[in-house]
């Protein structure tokens, strides 16, 4: 998979927020005109089929499969039959994300990512493993059971020991029974911390634990929490002596006249990806998050302005810093503001090269235009939302699109499309927009850097040009001797032609699989140097590798690649197979 196609997934918070949003559900008409008759020659509907299997390839019946358009709320569901097979029919020709769930089972994933994107007509195979189980007993200082308290397991590390910020949410949560016993199952293998308490304040319920801080196993605060590692199918016992210590109250006002609002309080360092939340129904302007332990936090309010079947329309407040030190914090005011939007079009340029004749063209309704936000080195404003998929757009039949829900930050854009002989040639903005962001102009300017977007911005005229003639490179990375393939190894291409040095779309990478294989697709024809890079270990940050926006970064990459890289030439529509890269 080429690097530009993956976006992080914050599934749990996504589900939580989606729940909030569907609670204020509704109905609206889009400005997009209904499909004209000219499309009737194309396929109007189709199916996605697949199979769910276990670790040994045995069919898994009864699994629940969910299919959602990449940028819509419509949900189609299916259940795997006795052979593990499923089929969802009557799907419009769009792009879909397909996910699976089965109680007690999980998908083994090093870190959570968005489910891959599928078209109609495709077949999906899910391999599931037995999840881990964490179970135990919560007792108070007197040794009595603590009843109906939420218990959560938060994954902090992969099985290979690398840290993950898995869940920005409450994590997997179960409540204790009358004996104080809880059981959390279907856990992804890895290392967890377990905590009791942390009551959600999004309901009108009152519980005995509302004002108390969570206790981490065995009877600790977050800093000294014990860690527990579970493997597939393994069951671990974790008991907690619950301390029932009173926490503090973080409260204030949020502008929430017509819409429900979620208020999120997240530890500033976000090490464990934990947040506390309060939900305000429409018309209620006071909020309070209770049972907050001392610490440094950030707080944000989040609102859905309207629900539309194609996209969500969100508002977000500025993120404020909150310091809780031995006292309640009052008087916080949060004002959700509309987020930025970018509209534009996709232009397609066919190739005259004879090698490219008769190849498949990209189709607008099977394209996803995704956004990536630049995470700056000193950024503290890391919050888990909006979900990147809420800022994903599909062009209409004329190639026009609108990206919504962009909070302040630096962005870049990448289209995914199903046409292997096409590539992203350029991204341009009207120069007036890119300079002063005001009057429109017929002049356009190529974009080579992240684009700054602020709250409420409306940027139009973004043009992405897709060109025919892309090639691909597939092959293997070989070590000198018995060198093991590092887990985060990438094969990276750097343009060899001097006049292409500033063409940021000619810099691309692909993750190397554990068997050393890699595939780089949708490459502009030309000459490249191939090098290997371990993500995070290079002098350049992952963001700088993804988008070498500074001339310095590009120069450095070209200098390194020229000295150690191997040159490879890709002709229009050429597939280079069995290419070998030596790992040095």
């Amino acid at each position, binding site marked *: 998979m080429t690097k530009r196609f993956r976006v992080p997934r914050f599934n749990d918070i996504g589900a939580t927020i989606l729940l909030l949003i569907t609670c204020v559900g*509704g109905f609206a008409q889009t400005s997009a005109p209904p499909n004209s008759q000219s499309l009737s020659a194309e396929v109007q509907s189709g199916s996605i089929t697949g199979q769910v299997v276990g670790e040994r390839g045995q069919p898994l019946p009864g699994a629940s499969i969910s299919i959602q358009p990449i940028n819509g709320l419509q949900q189609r569901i299916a259940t795997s039959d006795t052979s593990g097979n499923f089929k969802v029919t009557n799907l419009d020709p769009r792009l879909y994300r397909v996910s699976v769930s089965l109680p007690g089972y999980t998908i083994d994933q090093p870190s959570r990512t968005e489910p891959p994107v599928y078209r109609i007509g495709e077949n999906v195979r899910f391999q599931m493993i037995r999840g881990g189980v964490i179970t135990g007993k919560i007792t108070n200082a007197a040794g009595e059971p603590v009843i109906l308290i939420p218990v959560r397991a938060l994954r902090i590390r992969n099985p290979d020991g690398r840290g993950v910020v898995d869940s920005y949410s409450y994590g997997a949560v179960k409540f204790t029974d009358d004996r104080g016993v809880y059981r959390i199952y279907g856990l992804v293998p890895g290392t967890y911390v377990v905590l009791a308490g942390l009551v959600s304040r999004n309901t009108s319920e009152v519980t005995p634990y509302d004002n108390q801080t969570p206790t981490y196993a065995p009877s600790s605060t977050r800093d000294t929490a014990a860690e527990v590692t579970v493997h597939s199918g393994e069951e671990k016992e974790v008991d907690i002596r619950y301390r029932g210590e009173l926490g503090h109250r973080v*409260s204030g006002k949020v502008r929430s006249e017509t819409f429900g609002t979620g208020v999120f309080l997240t530890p500033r360092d976000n090490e464990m990806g934990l947040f506390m939340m309060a939900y305000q129904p429409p018309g209620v302007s*006071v909020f309070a998050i209770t049972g907050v332990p001392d610490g440094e936090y950030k707080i944000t309010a989040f609102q859905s302005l*309207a629900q539309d079947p194609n996209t969500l329309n969100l508002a977000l407040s500025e993120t404020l810093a909150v310091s809780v030190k031995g006292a309640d914090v009052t008087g916080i005011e949060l004002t959700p503001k509309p987020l930025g939007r970018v509209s534009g079009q996709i232009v397609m340029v066919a190739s005259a090269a004879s090698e490219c004749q008769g190849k498949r063209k990209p189709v607008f309704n099977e394209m996803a235009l995704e956004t990536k936000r630049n995470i700056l080195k000193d950024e503290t404003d890391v919050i888990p939302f909006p979900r990147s998929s809420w800022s994903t757009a599909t062009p209409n039949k004329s190639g026009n699109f609108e990206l919504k829900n962009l909070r302040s930050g630096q962005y870049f854009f990448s289209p995914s499309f199903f046409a292997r002989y096409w590539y992203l040639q350029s991204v341009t903005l009207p120069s007036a927009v890119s300079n002063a962001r005001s009057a429109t102009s017929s002049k356009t300017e190529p974009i080579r850097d992240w684009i700054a977007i602020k709250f409420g911005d409306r940027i139009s005229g973004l043009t992405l040009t897709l060109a025919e003639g892309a090639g691909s490179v597939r092959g293997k990375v070989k070590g000198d001797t018995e060198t093991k393939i590092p887990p985060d190894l990438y094969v990276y291409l750097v343009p060899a032609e001097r006049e292409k040095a500033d063409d940021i779309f000619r810099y691309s990478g692909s993750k190397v699989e554990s068997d050393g294989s890699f595939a780089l697709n949708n490459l502009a024809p030309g000459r490249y140097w191939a090098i290997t890079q371990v993500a995070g270990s290079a002098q350049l940050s992952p963001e700088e590798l993804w988008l070498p926006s500074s001339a310095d970064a590009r120069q450095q990459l070209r200098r390194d690649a020229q000295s150690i890289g191997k040159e490879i030439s890709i002709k229009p529509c050429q597939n280079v197979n069995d290419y070998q890269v030596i790992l040095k």
Partner: protein
Amino acid sequence: MTARFSTLLLFCFSCAIQAQTSRPSEPQGTLSGRVTAQGKALAGSVVLLWKQPMQEPLGIETLSGLTDTDGNYRISNVPPGNYYASVTAPGFFLLEDGRPSRQLRPVVITGSDSIDKIDFQLQRGGVVTGRVVTLDEKPLPEITVVLLPETAKEPSYNQPRKRPDSVKTDDRGIYRIFGITPGRYRVAAGDLVTAYASNNGKPAITRTFYPNLVEESKAPLLEIKTSQVWENINIKSGLPQSSFSIVGKVVDDQSGMPIPNAACGIDIYGNGEIKGGISGLNFTNARGEFVVDGLTAGTYRISVPSHLTFGTAEPPEYFGSSEDIEVVDHDVESVIVKVSRTATLSGTVRFEGANEPSLLAKLQSVRVNLFTTPGPGKEIFFQRLVINKDGSFSMRGVRPGTLGMSLNQAGVGASNSFRISRIERAGVASEDIQITAGAEVTDLTVVMAYVNSSIHGTVKAPTVEPGVKLSGQVYLYSEKTVIGFAQIDERGEFLIQDTPSGTFRLVADIQVAGSKPLRTEQFVTVTAGATVELILTPIRPN
């Protein structure tokens, strides 16, 4: 009070749960007592004060107190008003006068009262635990298990998450229901409305009673006593039901044109009445077509828009519903949902001969609801109406029917002093304003009144021994209409708030513990903004 002040007040009351707020001008009461379980102090339970009438405040606005290791609690800074006191202790149930009770205790705070000895006696509930398995003994995970009392009818489909009498099995098929009040129960696995599970992609098993019966009347009753644990109540169930899809199209009733991007809800019917619904996940495509998956055999209707529509910026332009759709053993295709245009209403609010700007500002803290009643058997349309600060209002997306309006309190401590006197159309008052499909009604006037008197009473029953608990209700009548109501608390205090001025008939039904209710009646004259003090002395009839 100005609008700003009342918002502030609301905010402060919510702070009062933990932080001490000093508000010397406003007297505040204190409530205290002790919570025991089977005679022993129960630490860590919560005593709550709910504002009467039974409106559920937000969790953060609920006045509450946690019991300490001796079982004692104390709730201070309680603003004057009528409340119910209740206790929450997971796994336990409330025992009142020796009987299991969900009864809430009326408490009247009239000033800086200090009410003590509001004690609660709890009992440890019973437990039922076991496994749910298939006929070949495979565990069935994440299946709902419910406890059905012998006499009560089916619990409502809209169950709160933590209701103790409904749980789900874990990955091993094991369930455990606890905190059960004594009684005779049947235990069943599977939802009554199987479409909830199947539409969520989860196995939808036919409701099966312990041990393996489909017919409720044949299922054995378990006699559950306080603290008793019934183990190995294993249920053997058949295979999950198959589920099917409904495929169709939404079209404009008038033009026949397809409606794209319409939110489609699923109404679930059983025995001719609505059992529940699912919404938020289905929308028509660009050609007006929809597909709804995961429906087990049953009767459904597809409705537009789906039911969860409050608080949206874009009100629905269309509404409508399909005929009954019977799902038997295959997908249902070609369903047509005909929809009509919704209406738009606008107008102004004015007050009966009062200083309007300040009242309009105050009205901002009150929730105004607009509803239309389409006729017997049809669903009532109900939505919050935003009144602007100048008194104007407008609402789109209104469904046809007879127009009505109602008021809600905004929260603890908020004023309930507003009344809707009448609704006028084109200057003519009517109780039968008809809203038709697609109508644009612009000439509405809502006439409101502002009332702020109150009646505080004390029951002094000469024949009652000191310390005996009192209870009862007080009603205030204008002609034959009840315009005020209050509960009498255990000390004999009552407070009717937000009454209009005038002369009214006050009827009190007083219950002295252990004897027949006594009734007293008298006329009371109330002046605007004042509190009338009363002493009721019921005389036992011979």
